[in-house]
């Protein structure tokens, strides 16, 4: 489907055009004859399901992957992009989905990695200049931080801001952003949007990958949809409805209202957290979760939601308080919590959720070993069957259960993390940003799944930075502020305004 440009555009020649790009990985045709063009001063949204090939296309575009077939044109002239250096010369800069920061270098060194200002002695770095330059870049994106802070001390959101600063500093003509807001709070997201508006005005072409429908319509000038490595269509936001877009992406109708079968009367008490205080900065947390409920846990980034989740699961130690699960007090390591029926779907799937080099099957059964093989004897075929079942149930896009999990797309990796707890038969699911980086189809599937789980007598505690999601699916929610519970919202009170009001400092 490499038909010519789909729609009329302001400028006659695109800044950069890719024609007939194909890219194959062992067992996966990641890109199949994809054509794609960006024009100066536009925000080009790239949409698609998890594993559709968005990140791959961008990696081809910036020279990180070599394409198996296809041509590149810069301002109408044929060029070769075979390395990141080639791409940089053409003014292409990328904010990757995975961070490309060096932990023990400071912010300034990270921003200018490979482009350090030269000092007087050959080979040395002009320290004063690099700090000043970094400060200037950070100021343009409104990020107020000391550029000599080492990156290992930064939170996820702060790291994302450094990534953005790094891309901006290259004075790029073409800027690719792969899910830049996935880790950002509302405040930082606003800063980013303002920045995008400014760059647009300067004539920078922006390619923007996102799974958030709101952003697509708020920012996009043009939309290209990929599905299974193929380009499906190119449209303008004004010409489509979200439902139509979703259909293009997943090839079928998806219900985006996340229907919940709300429990009329909540079941018995499953989890009771009393006065939980932990050295990680949370204090006096009181939470109750009943069977059949989905309870939200919201607040700003850094308000301590993840810390609560980790402390309940036993991943971090606690200083005082009590956690009562299913009538019994628990305290100890995660293996105890897991055995009693608590599941944690952690914030960072790559570093905390998966063994990236192992197979999908290995990852799916790892939490359920004791349940699947009560005798203690492991049976590969049984594991494989369980995995195949989960792959079907969760619609995980993988060539087989034997595929290395690290080669799946981000969203599919997330499904594997959820899948392993389904296999374990947990009773309480603690989701820490379960839909981060997950496509719309998968999102509704995951919510349907959670709904089914709780309907069957399980319960969920869900952390999400997307307040809409909380409002749609939760029975009620706790709002956190600075390590404490700032308030509780019932089903009727659960609105975005209320969440924000309780979560802000001047509530």
């Amino acid at each position, binding site marked *: 489907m490499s038909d010519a440009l789909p729609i009329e555009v302001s400028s006659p020649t695109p800044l950069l055009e890719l024609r007939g790009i194909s890219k194959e990985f062992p067992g996966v045709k990641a890109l199949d004859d994809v054509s794609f063009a960006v024009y100066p001063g536009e925000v080009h949204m790239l949409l698609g399901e998890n594993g559709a090939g968005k990140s791959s296309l961008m990696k081809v575009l910036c020279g990180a992957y070599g394409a198996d077939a296809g041509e590149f044109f810069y301002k109408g002239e044929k060029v070769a992009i075979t390395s990141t250096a080639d791409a940089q010369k053409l003014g292409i800069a990328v904010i990757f989905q995975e961070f490309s920061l060096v932990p023990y270098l400071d912010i300034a060194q990270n921003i200018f990695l490979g482009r350090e200002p030269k000092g007087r002695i050959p080979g040395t770095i002009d320290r004063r200049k690099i700090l000043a330059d970094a400060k200037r870049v950070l100021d343009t994106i409104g990020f107020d931080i000391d550029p000599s802070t080492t990156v290992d001390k930064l939170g996820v959101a702060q790291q994302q801001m450094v990534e953005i600063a790094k891309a901006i500093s290259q004075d790029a003509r073409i800027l690719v952003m792969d899910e830049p807001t996935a880790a950002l709070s509302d405040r930082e997201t606003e800063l980013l949007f303002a920045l995008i508006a400014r760059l647009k005005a300067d004539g920078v072409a922006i390619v923007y990958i996102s799974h958030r429908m709101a952003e697509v319509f708020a920012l996009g000038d043009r939309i290209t949809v990929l599905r299974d490595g193929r380009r499906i269509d190119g449209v303008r936001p004004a010409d489509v409805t979200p439902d139509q877009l979703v259909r293009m992406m997943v090839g079928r109708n998806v219900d985006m209202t996340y229907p919940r079968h709300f429990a009329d009367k909540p079941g018995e008490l499953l989890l009771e957290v009393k006065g939980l205080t932990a050295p990680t900065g949370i204090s006096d947390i009181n939470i109750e979760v009943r069977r059949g409920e989905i309870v939200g846990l919201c607040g700003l980034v850094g308000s301590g939601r993840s810390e609560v989740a980790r402390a309940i699961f036993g991943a971090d130690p606690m200083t005082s308080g009590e956690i009562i699960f299913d009538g019994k007090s628990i305290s100890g390591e995660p293996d105890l919590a897991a055995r009693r029926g608590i599941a944690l779907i952690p914030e960072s799937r790559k570093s905390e959720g998966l063994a990236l*080099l*192992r197979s999908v099957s*290995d990852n799916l059964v790892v939490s359920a070993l004791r349940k699947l093989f009560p005798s203690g004897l492991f049976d590969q075929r049984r594991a494989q069957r369980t995995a195949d079942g989960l792959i079907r149930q969760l619609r995980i896009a993988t060539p087989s259960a034997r595929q290395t999990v690290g080669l799946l797309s981000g969203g599919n990796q997330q499904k594997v993390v959820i899948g392993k707890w389904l296999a374990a038969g947990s009773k309480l699911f603690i989701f820490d940003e379960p839909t981060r980086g997950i496509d719309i189809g998968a999102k509704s599937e995951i919510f349907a799944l959670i709904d089914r789980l709780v309907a069957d007598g399980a319960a969920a505690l869900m952390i999400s930075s997307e307040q809409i999601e909380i409002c749609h699916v939760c029975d009620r929610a706790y709002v956190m502020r600075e390590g404490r519970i700032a308030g509780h919202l019932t089903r009727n009170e659960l609105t975005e305004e209320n969440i924000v009001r309780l979560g802000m400092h001047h509530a």
Partner: protein
Amino acid sequence: MTDISKEAIMPPRSFLSQDAIQVFYRLLAALLICAVLAVLSDSFLSLGNILNVLRQASLTFFIASGLTLVVLTAGLDLSVGANVALSACIAGTVIHKTGSPALGILTGLACGGIVGLLNGIMVTALRIPSFIATYGMLWVLNGLTYWYMAGETLHGFPAGFRQIGSGYLFGLPIPVYLLLVFLGIGTFFAQRTIWGQEIYAIGANPVAARLSGIPVARRLLLVYAVSGLMAGLASIIFLSRLNSAEADIGESLTLPAIAAVLIGGTSLFGGVGTVFGTFIGALILTLVLNGMNLLSVSANWQPLVTGIIVILAVWLDMKTRRRTQ
């Protein structure tokens, strides 16, 4: 439906698992070395020599098999050799003092296991990287053994006890039976028990393993204790085979054991490898030394040849792994 299109891109399922393929390549390499040696030396292919090679490989294998589990968790145990020395000296003394081989064997195993457990405690409770913790342990053990032995040699053990290392049963050396037994146990443990699976998971990503509900600290303790226990077993074999022990016997055992694990295809980054691979690794190392002895290769060349073999083996392993992925 998207499912159908995704089904279409699945490659045909290969019949053999990745590990099986790697073991197969290794067997091939071992056979190749055998073929070369058979051409170069008349005596190589004799039954006697083959049993001989197996028996020599068994000592390295006992140490290396426990070590394999440690390496599977992305750890390392540099203290195995020193552990063998201490355990052998203690077990030997007990046999001399009490006259009871059974008691001696038990003390040797217990000594090895306790040292392993201490390693495990350093790695889990004190959170010292295993490479460093076991290096420290190596010197502590050496100090203990030197002090305990004070330059003496233990020798002369009951004939029954000596059968373990030097006896035959139905024409096969007893260590070869032990080798087969432990090869079986090790493979079964690693591949067919959930503990084995958990060990692989820990090696692949310890943080994720912990958050998946695996009792990481306990499994690590187990793994280091098993490694120590196997060193204890090796010390018994050593003692009964050589009918003697002294303080420095461990020195020349550690690096060959590590080399056997690596040649056997276990990755130092954890999560990848098999006990059977380690067995073939031990076999390849032994074959090379056996060949050099049979061909009377000068001593000067022996480290050089061993070094090249280690690099070649691992490089070929990576080559074949990439292709079959």
